[in-house]
């Protein structure tokens, strides 16, 4: 099992299948998009041997991600028999195939303990292996029926295993405009799939890995005119915009807004960057009867006549998120080009020429995959809106200490639990600024680390009178004798500037002492963006050469209430 991985190392991927997957390996390694991969295609046709034998030579590459891509009629012998249309024996073959699917599932589970993550594309039958249309969905005999059951069986089996992900391969096949299979290549080199399918698979797999590694995008910036609605509201007037039925074009924009709303619901932040009169634009958003997205679906906007790149920089600052988390959607090729040139970290996909393709296009953007969708994701927009409330309160009160006191900040500390593991791991992997050691681990690695006898890990939930920030802090330490070393110290940028880090450090140091440590050490790791964490810790050392925390400099601020859960 791998422990620490850093973004500078390529992630090692092992491909196991019953057909030649080398073209996929090349495509995965070739892409210039993150993450960097080093992919090995195991010799084909040894699926069970590799899954069940930890000593098989295929494992010598020490993969972190395993992809097991099998074809049903090659890996499940009874499917092959079923395809021969011997109806007398079909019922037995059907049942046998399900048992074989079960065995396959168990083999995958066995292998999952040797890697961080297993990706299993679902079983799809090549179209040239099709069965009799009227019988293929019959219970107990039909091939399509069987495959659906077999895939569901895998979904059941893998449900409890957090590091196995079933990938929707049927979608890959269905999404292609060119054929998915090439029987000639199969005859020549046992390559079953066309380059187009391999390309699709490579793009999808990389998207999943980006999600796992915390590299998914967090913010969508939309233009308004001819992007969210048809027409230019400043010229045409709100009543003449193409938005909503019965106009087909208007329906396309509604479909696009509906797709964007789904992203907002799962935790992606929506913002606006438009060259328009702000009050006209906002009133259109609030009042136009066919708008799907309303003002409270957006967390921030820059509607003015300024340069869009400048506005994007502003938005990034307001949201306290890096530009590499941003996706910029604008129908204008000139605006897109300008942003691409000035802000290369922003992802600027080319939008289709026709608005009818806007909604489907959104689903092809492979940058929002995530390891899981938790409560925090679902409430993210509301949290950002609460932050606006806080900022306004600061402006009103004038004095920072008074303001802090008025916030009534409460921190709840708890030991790391299974229930908080998803969010804690997300925080560990996504936080760049207030992160002491920049350790990146996946859920099982982090849990296992914390379970060791002299290791402790705590999570911190923060609320104030405006709302709940959620789980925004993480601290861990390792004790050796009378010395404790803080290993992870992570705080979300959401709560920066409120002295919450002082409370977190205070609690961590107290906890370390409570288990017998006399000295608490911390070793900041130098990363490109974690200056805030490094400066904070530097101010806690009495001697800069000895990274030992000076107890006099650690104090839980009086304005913050610290609560403890056991």
């Amino acid at each position, binding site marked *: 099992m791998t422990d620490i991985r850093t973004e500078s190392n390529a992630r090692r991927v092992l491909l196991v299948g019953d057909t*030649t997957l*080398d*073209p996929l390996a*090349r495509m995965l390694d070739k892409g210039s998009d993150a993450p960097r991969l080093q992919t090995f295609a195991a010799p084909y046709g040894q699926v069970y041997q590799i899954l069940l034998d930890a000593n098989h030579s295929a494992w010598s590459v020490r993969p972190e991600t395993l992809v097991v891509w099998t074809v049903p009629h090659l890996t499940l012998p009874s499917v092959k028999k079923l395809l021969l249309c011997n109806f007398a024996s079909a019922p037995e073959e059907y049942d046998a195939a399900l048992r074989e699917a079960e065995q396959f599932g168990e083999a995958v589970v066995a292998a999952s303990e040797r890697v961080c993550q297993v990706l299993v594309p679902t079983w799809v039958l090549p179209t040239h292996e099709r069965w009799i249309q009227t019988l293929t969905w019959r219970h107990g005999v039909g091939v399509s029926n069987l495959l659906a059951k077999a895939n569901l069986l895998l979904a059941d089996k893998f449900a409890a295993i957090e590091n196995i992900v079933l990938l929707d391969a049927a979608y890959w096949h269905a999404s292609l405009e060119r054929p998915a299979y*090439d029987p*000639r*290549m199969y*005859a*020549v*080199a046992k*390559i079953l799939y*066309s*380059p187009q399918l391999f390309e699709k698979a490579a793009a999808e797999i990389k998207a999943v890995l980006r999600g796992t590694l915390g590299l998914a995008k967090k913010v969508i910036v939309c233009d308004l005119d001819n992007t969210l609605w048809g027409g230019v509201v400043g010229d045409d007037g709100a009543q003449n915009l193409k938005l909503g039925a019965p106009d087909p074009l208007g329906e396309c924009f509604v479909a696009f807004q509906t797709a964007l709303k789904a992203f907002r619901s799962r935790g992606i932040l929506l913002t606006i960057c438009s060259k328009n009169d702000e009050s006209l634009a906002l009133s259109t958003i609030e009042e136009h009867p066919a708008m799907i997205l309303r003002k409270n679906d957006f967390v921030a906007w820059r509607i003015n006549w300024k340069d869009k790149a400048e506005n994007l920089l502003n938005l990034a600052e307001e949201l306290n998120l890096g530009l590499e988390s941003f996706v910029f959607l604008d129908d204008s090729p000139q605006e897109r080009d300008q942003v691409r040139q000035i802000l290369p970290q922003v992802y600027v996909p080319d939008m289709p020429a026709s608005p009818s393709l806007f909604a489907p296009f959104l689903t092809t953007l492979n940058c929002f995959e995530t390891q899981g969708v938790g409560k925090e994701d679902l409430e993210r927009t509301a949290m950002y809106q609460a932050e606006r409330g806080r900022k306004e309160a600061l402006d009103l009160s004038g004095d920072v200490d008074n303001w802090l006191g008025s916030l009534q900040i409460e921190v709840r500390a708890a030991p790391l639990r299974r229930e908080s593991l998803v969010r804690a791991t997300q925080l560990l992997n996504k936080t760049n600024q207030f992160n002491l050691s920049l350790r990146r681990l996946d859920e099982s690695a982090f849990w296992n680390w914390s379970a060791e006898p002299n290791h402790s890990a705590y999570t911190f939930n923060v609320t104030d009178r405006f709302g709940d920030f959620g789980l925004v802090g993480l601290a861990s330490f390792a004790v050796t004798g009378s010395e404790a070393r803080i290993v992870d110290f992570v705080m979300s940028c959401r709560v920066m500037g409120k002295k919450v880090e002082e409370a977190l450090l205070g609690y961590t140091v107290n906890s370390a002492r409570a288990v017998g440590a006399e000295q608490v050490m911390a070793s900041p790791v130098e990363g490109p963006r974690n200056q805030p964490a490094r400066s904070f810790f530097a101010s806690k050392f009495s001697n800069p050469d000895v990274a030992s925390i000076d107890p006099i400099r650690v104090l839980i601020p009086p304005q913050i209430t610290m609560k403890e859960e056991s």
Partner: protein
Amino acid sequence: MHELTAILNDIRPGQDFSKAKNFFDQGMLDSLDLTTLVSALEARFGVFIDVDEMVVENFCSLSAIESILTRKGIKV
């Protein structure tokens, strides 16, 4: 010819395909590259290369590739 070298460089960057006598003998391409090359040629020129034509002899040099494409009505 430029198109052919561009296609070949996409498969194996950094090699000089213009002068080589036999890509496969000289280790510039392997059998998997052959399948990738065939797919790329088909996509670019709209030709169909059958199973028995997917042999090293037909793709081992720029002139060999030019020949098979000419036989299929494509001028490079």
